[in-house]
Each structure stands twice: as structure tokens, then as C-alpha cells.
């Protein structure tokens, strides 16, 4: 992927990378002639696709650690549920409990949350629009 400043007909240079922590990525590129800066913003799926190749936008500043991708991306166990969170999940009607559990587990997994608490469930409900679950 390259960026061209059409006005100057110049290839733009990589400037900066930001990882906000929500699965998205922001990378800025600068025109060496006019100084114009543009930002490339990727959604979580696009970020993940690049990440899954084991490469880093902007280049690596340190060599990859052994098994880096496996250690950072493989879920070796599902998120833990505190007893309070389990009790609350138990109040969900049984015919939708599995689905609701998966929604919370996916929410936690996607954000690197290792333990689901009632507070996490509240946050997830608000963010995902799941009032009543």
C-alpha cells in the first residue's frame, strides 16, 4: 500500500502509527514536498488482517519475539467469569443464555478482557445496545 500526493505527484512517506486499543489502527503519511498529512484509518477487521500476517505497518523497530503471533493472538482459554457475573448470567432465560454468554465472551475476547464481571457486563450492554440482557 502506497500513498500519492496527487497535487505534487509525490509518494507520501510513512509518518506515524497509532493503536488506540479498540482494534483500530491509524497511520499517517506525509507528502515530502508540500507537507500535507493524510491518515489511513482501518477498522478492526482490516487491522486484524494485517496483524494476521505477522507484519507491522510502519516497519518493525525490534525483531519479532519467538512465537509472538501465537502468544499474543491465540486464546488459550475463554475469559473467566466471576461468581457474581455467573449468577447474573443465570438469571437470563435458558433458551437465550448460550447466545448471551457468547456475546459477552466475544466482547471480552475482542478487547483482551480476561475476566468478566458485572461491571464489564454493564459496559458491554451499554456499548452493544443489549439492554435487558
Amino acid at each position, binding site marked *: 500500500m502506497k500513498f500519492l500526493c496527487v497535487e505534487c505527484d509525490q509518494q507520501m*512517506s510513512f509518518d506515524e502509527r497509532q493503536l488506540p486499543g479498540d482494534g483500530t489502527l491509524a497511520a499517517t503519511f506525509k507528502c515530502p514536498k508540500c507537507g500535507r498529512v493524510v491518515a489511513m484509518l482501518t477498522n478492526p477487521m482490516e487491522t486484524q488482517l494485517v496483524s*494476521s500476517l505477522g507484519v507491522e505497518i510502519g516497519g518493525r523497530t525490534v525483531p519479532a519475539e519467538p512465537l509472538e503471533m501465537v502468544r499474543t493472538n491465540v486464546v488459550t482459554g475463554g475469559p473467566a467469569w466471576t461468581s457474581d457475573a455467573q449468577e447474573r448470567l443465570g438469571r437470563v432465560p435458558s433458551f437465550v443464555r448460550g447466545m448471551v454468554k457468547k456475546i459477552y465472551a*466475544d466482547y471480552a475476547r475482542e478487547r483482551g478482557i480476561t475476566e468478566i464481571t458485572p461491571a464489564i457486563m454493564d459496559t458491554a450492554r451499554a456499548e452493544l445496545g443489549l439492554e435487558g440482557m
Partner: protein
Amino acid sequence: MRTYHQLTDPDRSGLAEQIGAQRRRVAERLAAVSRIVAVMSGKGGVGKSYVTAHLARALGRAGRRVGVLDADLNGPTIPGLLQTSEAVELPATGLDGVRCVSMGLMLGDGAPLTFKGPSAESFVWRGAMEASALRELLGDVEWGKLDFLLLDLPPGMQRYVELCDILGNPPAVLTVTIPTPESRDAVRRAMRVAFDRGSELIGIVENMVGREFVGTAADDLAKEFTIRVLARIPWHPTPDNWSTLGSQL
């Protein structure tokens, strides 16, 4: 407006260079391996992992240094077959001194292989993630000096194709089938892909011979691809069956 290939300034991300560095890492790691053999079949349930594990053990008993990479990331069975259920470090050491690396050594009991990341449309990135995991298991594990590295592949062709890309050269292939015509037809497609990719077809192992499964799959495939049937493994094989097979690699 200029096109992609007309922009020739150095790319600071250097994604192509990063991919190249990954491949060099695998090549350097596997330079101490005398022979890499992919155990494959286009058909599921023919006993690839069983053959791989017992072949590895037979080679180990014969004094060879053997490693097994369980390339079936989603259905790893090699740790159980080699009795390496826990590993403090990789590679683990199993029965008859066989070194083993498997996703099964890293996942909790019964846990499926799951990657962190957005669950919606995960099919877009999951395949690439699995290929990267395979690359790391090959290139980041200190296998040491090996006479044989056996790669236990899952059913289908996808993992074989990934391996060809990761290794740079297609691995030699040992094919496993059962006697039935259904197995023959599925395995034939896999062998065709391996042949077209330039893999050395070492030979065929016909597994589960002598009872319910009837047919001439191994002979048919051997004739078609002009290779040998290296072993016919009965339902209750003896150590001799495996050592005979091992002696032919």
C-alpha cells in the same frame, strides 16, 4: 496519476521485507533438518496422525532424531499419541524421544483454537492467522538437529499449500489412504496438487487394511502416480509394521 509500480521510493513499512525476513527465519531454523516429510491425504479419518506418530516412534527407536509438527491446528491429536500432554517448553519430548510441537500443547483441555480479534467476518483473516501460526511453529521453535521432521497435515489441501509457501520449497509427501474407492478419489486430488506443486511423492501407506474397508486404493494410486506402496497397515499393527515403513524413508 502514477500507478503503484511507478512509485519506487522505499516503503518504510517494508511489508515485503518483513515477509522475506519471516521466510528466512524458517529457512535458517530448518537448515539443521535433513528431511522434511509431509504426511497428508485428501481424506479425513484415514489415520494420518496415527501413522505419523507411530512412524516417528519407529524412527526414534531406530536411533534417528525425529520431530513431529502437528499441523492440524484445529484438531491436534499428536500430543495424545506421543503422550506429551504438558510442555514447559517447545518442542516437547514424547515417546521414543520424538520431539513434538502442537497447538494441543498450548490450548486448554477441549478448548478450540480461537484467535483474539473481531468475530464478525472472521473468515477474512482466520486463514492468514492460521498460516502465521504454522510459520511460527516451524520457524520459532528450536527443533535442533533432526534427521526427520514429519508434518502431520489436516484433511484437505489448504495446509499443504500454505506449507509450500512458508517453506519456499514443496516438502516431500507421504500419502495415507484407506482401501476404499471413496478414499482413493479424494486422495488422488490431493496427490495431484502435490505433484503439480513439485513435491517428491515418497509413497503410499494403506491404513486400516483387512476388515471392513474394501478396495484397491493404494494399488490404483501407486500405478497412476508411478510410486510404491510402502506399507499396508492392518487394524492392529505391530511395531514391525512401523519399523518396516520407517526403513523405507
